[in-house]
């Protein structure tokens, strides 16, 4: 919080006053330092919108064009900034439209508070107009949720909501507020929540477990680190880098861990998982000690669990005790905050370099380069590749852009080839794989950190899942850069059909509209390119633009993403073609 918002916070909490529940909602948001929220009005949340109108100079409400857009925008805001994203919707259809974004935030541990309106409490359970049991519906996909039926409960519940959303392993929280609670009055006083009796957000790191981990690491001949988003959420980037460098350990990342250590770091050996790099996947089954930090052994990362790192001793650092032994049996579990645990680990480590082991990664990289990367980045055939577009974006943004990718082939290409100098630069839907994520998430990211270059990379399929948010870009004048990689296919599904379903392209071919005309219809600068000669200039023009910019690149229709660990196969069976 800067001092300005801090002063505001003081102001909204200093005096006890008699106000309406809806005004209390807005004052609570301001007290939590919320400067932007995303949403869509409707009958059951109108009193709160009326208050937002009154406070519009202090808190900026962004009208998205669909509640799913609001949820994803709040996620983008949270992912790039580490602050809590806020989304608001009316009851019934408004609330249910938030659900995909909430589920996405839950599986990707994104701090988000959703506020929904609800029918008056005397109508609850009567199938009233626009009544849905949103608390029931959202239960399995929220970290916590609660229904408020009295104005007086609002400050305490919202304080708790923010505390739960951002503490420990972050996640989405939903607060449903009945209309009578919004109209009711209360003596307002706001106290931030500092604890919930039954909830231990950050278990204390046990020094014995750190010692045991250090001992294993010091004795390892072929250690390997796989880090995940826990590093970014725990703000442990520097601690991780220090550990990696001191112990000289080749280190790989999961899709959500991307950018925590710069891509160019000599011990950064690339991405693990289904479309990760060849070396870290293969050598997972060769290392003698596997150190997993802030990652949860997702099945996209491990492939066949019965053949995953069986030879290795496994050390697992995680803030969430329920992740330990959930998928992979560990030899040493270090439960706690990654920043704290790694800081404790560092002095216990021997300074080492594992040169010949690192060389094994480099040798496999050379193979991957020859068979895959060269053709992706420096293609000789006529059609444009997704890889060369990413390469050009790296050149023009100098690796400082935040890349927000949607879901599909372009996502894998974006994660594989983006150069990340700065942390929190890879914003994508990892665990849920939600098409339609990128455009609204990019809007949220750009609004949260306006000084950063934000480039959305989207497929022609996913773009059309939330294309309406171009309206938000236009109305808000959010200078995001939008790149649609158009292969006229639901590319990733088509790839699977080609490889595993005999090339039967069932419903994956897309006849697309004139995207440039659509973007221009929203008064966004737009360009389509189809040839390699146009690429460099177009990307240059896009990055140089001070305003939002839409670039459609018509890419090769039937390119595939490799390497690939076929689903259900072992990570060592990773294919290069």
């Amino acid at each position, binding site marked *: 919080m800067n001092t300005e918002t801090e002063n505001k916070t003081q102001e909204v909490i200093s005096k006890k006053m008699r106000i309406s529940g809806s005004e209390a909602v807005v004052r609570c948001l301001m007290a939590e330092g919320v400067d932007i929220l995303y949403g869509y009005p409707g009958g059951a949340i109108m009193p709160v919108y009326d208050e937002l109108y009154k406070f519009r100079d202090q808190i900026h409400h962004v009208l998205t064009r669909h509640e799913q857009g609001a949820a994803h925008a709040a996620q983008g805001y949270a992912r790039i900034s580490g602050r809590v994203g806020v989304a608001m919707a009316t009851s019934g259809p408004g609330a249910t439209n938030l659900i995909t974004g909430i589920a996405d935030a839950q599986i990707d541990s994104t701090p988000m508070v959703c506020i929904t309106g609800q029918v008056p409490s005397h109508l609850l359970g009567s199938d009233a107009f626009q009544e849905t049991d949103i608390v029931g519906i959202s239960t399995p996909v929220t970290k916590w949720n609660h229904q408020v039926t009295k104005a007086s409960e609002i400050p305490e519940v919202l304080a708790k909501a923010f505390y739960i959303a951002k503490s420990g392993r972050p996640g989405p929280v939903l607060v449903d507020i009945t209309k009578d609670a919004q109209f009711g009055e209360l003596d307002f006083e706001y106290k931030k929540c500092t604890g919930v009796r*039954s909830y231990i957000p950050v278990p204390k790191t046990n020094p014995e477990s750190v010692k045991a981990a250090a001992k294993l690491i010091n004795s390892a001949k072929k250690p390997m680190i796989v880090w995940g988003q826990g590093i970014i959420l725990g703000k442990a980037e520097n601690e991780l880098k220090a550990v990696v460098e001191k112990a000289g350990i080749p280190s790989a990342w999961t899709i959500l861990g991307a950018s925590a250590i710069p891509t160019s770091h000599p011990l950064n050996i690339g991405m693990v998982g289904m479309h990760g790099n060849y070396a870290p996947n293969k050598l997972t089954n060769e290392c003698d000690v596997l150190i997993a930090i802030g990652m949860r052994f997702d099945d996209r990362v491990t492939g066949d669990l019965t053949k995953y790192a069986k030879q290795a001793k496994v050390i697992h650092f995680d803030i969430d005790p329920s992740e330990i032994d959930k998928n992979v049996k560990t030899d040493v579990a270090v439960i706690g905050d990654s920043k704290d645990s790694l800081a404790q680990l560092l002095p216990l480590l021997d300074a080492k370099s594992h040169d010949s082991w690192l060389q094994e990664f480099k040798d496999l990289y050379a193979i991957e380069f020859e068979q895959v990367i060269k053709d992706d980045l420096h293609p000789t055939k006529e059609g444009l590749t997704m890889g060369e577009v990413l390469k050009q974006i790296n050149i023009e943004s100098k690796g400082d852009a935040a890349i927000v990718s949607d879901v599909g082939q372009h996502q894998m290409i974006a994660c594989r080839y983006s150069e990340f100098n700065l942390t929190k630069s890879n914003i994508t839907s990892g665990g849920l794989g939600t098409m339609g994520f990128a455009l609204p998430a990019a809007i949220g990211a750009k609004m949260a950190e306006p000084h950063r270059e934000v480039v959305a990379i989207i497929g022609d399929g996913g773009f059309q899942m939330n294309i309406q948010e171009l309206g938000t870009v236009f109305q808000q004048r959010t200078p995001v850069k939008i790149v649609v990689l158009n292969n006229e296919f639901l590319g990733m599904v088509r790839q699977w059909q080609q490889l595993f379903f005999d090339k039967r392209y069932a419903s994956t071919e897309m006849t697309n509209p004139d995207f440039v005309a659509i973007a221009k219809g929203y008064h966004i600068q737009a360009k389509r390119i189809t040839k390699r000669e146009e690429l460099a200039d177009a990307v240059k023009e896009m990055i140089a633009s001070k305003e939002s910019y839409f670039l459609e690149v018509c890419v090769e229709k039937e390119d595939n993403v490799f390497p690939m660990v076929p689903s259900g196969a072992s990570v060592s069976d990773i294919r290069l073609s």
Partner: protein
Amino acid sequence: MNEEIKTFTISIYTENNIGLLNRISAIFQRRHINIESLTTSQSEIDGVNRFVIVVNISESQAKKIVGQFQKQIEVIRAFYHTDEETIYTESCMFKIKSSLLFEEPQIQNIIKESNTRIVTVNKEFFVLEKSGRRNEIESLRRDLNVFGIMQFVRAGRIAVTKDEMKVTEMLLAFNNQ
């Protein structure tokens, strides 16, 4: 991994919150675990509720779901125990035609031998109540079934552990933080 399936009693100490039953049942549902019985009541600690849930699962499943319960914001502590580690009882009621009580002297013997209590008798029917282990109740039910049971109901298991569960301590530690 063909682990042995056993009966586990899962105890969950929680804050008293309306939505929590939903969260707890969802955790079973997602993993396709069938609940054999479920009891919820107050616990020894003021303002703290306790769920006692009986399931037939493997130990590693038990460990994982307990981790998932523990993760819920309003769950204070969760435990799992085998039958050997708990003292438990279940209770049941039978409603039987009154005429049988006089026509079938065998019924009186069953009542006496099984330590079953007569709750009420009237002209139409009489009601029996019994607490005990599941197998005792089952065998009583088999015995009475021969004569015809008008209604039968069994309540969920209640259980206490043989060793201490340190929930109070944990709550105190939190309050002192």
